[in-house]
């Protein structure tokens, strides 16, 4: 029941205190869930990463190992490989997704609204279909003997013998990238179409009057105008790629020879198949730090470009 005058808003201590109480009451439901199921487990994860916590050993003074897990991790070739793979996925996927969706959007934003919407839906479908459904069908498509891919390539004369796509340490990661790509471009296309639609037409007209070519218009005006969107897309794609788990778990289980192992998948394996919880939690902390640093960097850049 606030009756304060609008012009006093925020200026009076009393009012601020009152607002604080109301605010926290409003925040309470969300904060309960957030603290209980996000912050608390994160804290526990960090804490237990300093213990030799396994199925047999509980967390106790006897099992405290300090930073040993972290030191071990940096000497563990399998972990380093998983880090390299994860970074590789990011390096390939993020630009590919960004450029592809920009290209598609720069074309479809200009076409008939109905058609545009059809394209948008189609490119979004793999996201909606759901990871498990998408993976099981791709697994079949990639199958060495029963897969459509080998059949097409063979009948097209591109290959002579069936290739075991998922069984090759060269190809398996590209299979993952391909599926990732199809499930990641949906959202960026929606974003770009909207952003390009918002570009002020008078800017473009003015440039054209000045004799700019289509290409110049695109890079000088549109590209600059959609920059915030590009950054946002890069951030979400990076985070999504870092968290890639289901694809690996359902498709390759990290093989062949660890070539598709990601930090996320290794963490899961370590915890649930090797029963080494403390070690797994240490991996989680490192992953969190990696993502944290990257996101912080990108958020910083973004906050300069976009006013939230």
């Amino acid at each position: 029941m606030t009756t304060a005058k609008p012009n006093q808003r925020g200026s009076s201590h009393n009012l601020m205190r009152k607002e604080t109480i109301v605010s926290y009451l409003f925040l309470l439901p969300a904060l309960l869930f957030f603290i209980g199921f996000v912050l608390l487990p994160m804290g526990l994860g960090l804490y237990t990463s300093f213990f030799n916590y396994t199925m047999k050993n509980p967390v106790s003074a006897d099992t405290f190992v300090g930073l040993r897990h972290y030191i071990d991790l940096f000497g563990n070739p399998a972990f380093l490989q998983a880090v390299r793979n994860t970074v590789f996925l990011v390096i390939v996927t993020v630009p590919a997704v960004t450029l592809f969706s920009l290209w598609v959007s720069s074309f479809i934003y200009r076409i008939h609204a109905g058609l545009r919407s059809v394209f948008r839906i189609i490119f979004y479908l793999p996201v909606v279909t759901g990871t498990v459904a998408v993976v099981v069908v791709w697994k079949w498509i990639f199958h060495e003997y029963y897969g459509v891919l080998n059949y097409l390539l063979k009948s097209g004369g591109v290959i002579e013998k069936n290739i075991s796509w998922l069984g090759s340490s060269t190809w398996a990661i590209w299979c993952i990238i391909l599926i990732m790509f199809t499930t990641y471009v949906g959202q960026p296309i929606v974003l770009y179409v909207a952003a390009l639609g918002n570009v002020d037409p008078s800017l473009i007209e003015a440039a054209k009057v000045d004799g700019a070519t289509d290409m110049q218009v695109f890079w000088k005006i549109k590209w600059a105008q959609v920059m915030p969107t590009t950054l946002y897309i890069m951030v979400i794609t990076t985070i999504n790629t870092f968290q890639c788990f289901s694809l690996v778990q359902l498709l390759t289980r990290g093989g062949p020879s660890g070539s598709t192992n990601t930090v996320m998948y290794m963490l899961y394996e370590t915890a649930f198949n090797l029963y080494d919880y403390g070690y797994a939690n240490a991996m989680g902390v490192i992953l969190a730090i990696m993502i944290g640093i990257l996101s912080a960097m990108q958020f910083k850049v973004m906050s300069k470009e976009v006013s939230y």
Partner: protein
Amino acid sequence: MNKLKKSSPYNILTMLALILLALSFLFPLYWIITGSFKSQMVAVSATPAWFPLEPTVDNYIRLFKNPAVKWLTNTVFVSLASMVLVLLTASLAGYTLAKKRFYGRAFVFALIIASMALPKQVVLVPLVRIMDFLKLSDNPWAVILPTVGWPFGIFLMKQFSESIPNEVLESARIDGAGELRTFVSIVTPIIKPAFGALGIFTFINTWNDYFLQLIMLRSRANLTISLGIATLQSEYATNYGLQMAGAALGSIPIILIFIFFQKYFTQGITMGAVKG
């Protein structure tokens, strides 16, 4: 909006390329649906059957001998409950963060932003423990609660709520409206599109989530459709047709929902990201 220059060769080529790409994006879905009507013998033939010439419904019969209906209802329940709770908690919190000035605001918001970037999977082992402590393991709520805790919704709602004109809130204040009434009768109508967007977003994401469900749910009767499809991959050989039937059952309802609510969805994505 400038119109396409008709019949420029670049435009025609691009259009053709896009159509081809669109078809290849549709192919997995086509393969799921047609595959679900193929017998195992057809599915594993070296020459793929582009269309099931001798369609069989055996796969669906076998699918429903599994508790597939239960999996579907479990999925609907988890998705709906998550959606409702997310909408409730996030709209209140988002509005507060956007429009209220209070002690600790910057800190709370920073915490939310920071944790949004962190991978959910990091909290895996502790989360299992917490759910057990709450006696919720192998229970749909073990999936719902962490989904609600994830702060993306708060972030999105905050972005939306920024656009609420301060004058409207202040005139409500002058009229003597209480905080809750202001929220219900002033704020909610303004951010209505956000409800649609966040709601459908949460619903679809929860429907298609795999990781949390994998960790939290165990017994066959409690599985969701995502997990159900994954378990159809048995130890002794995959039955492709059966698996595709499962995939179709899991994805077609959600695809229909998506197409139906498409407008809200795209609105939500764009408004949340580009400008609040």
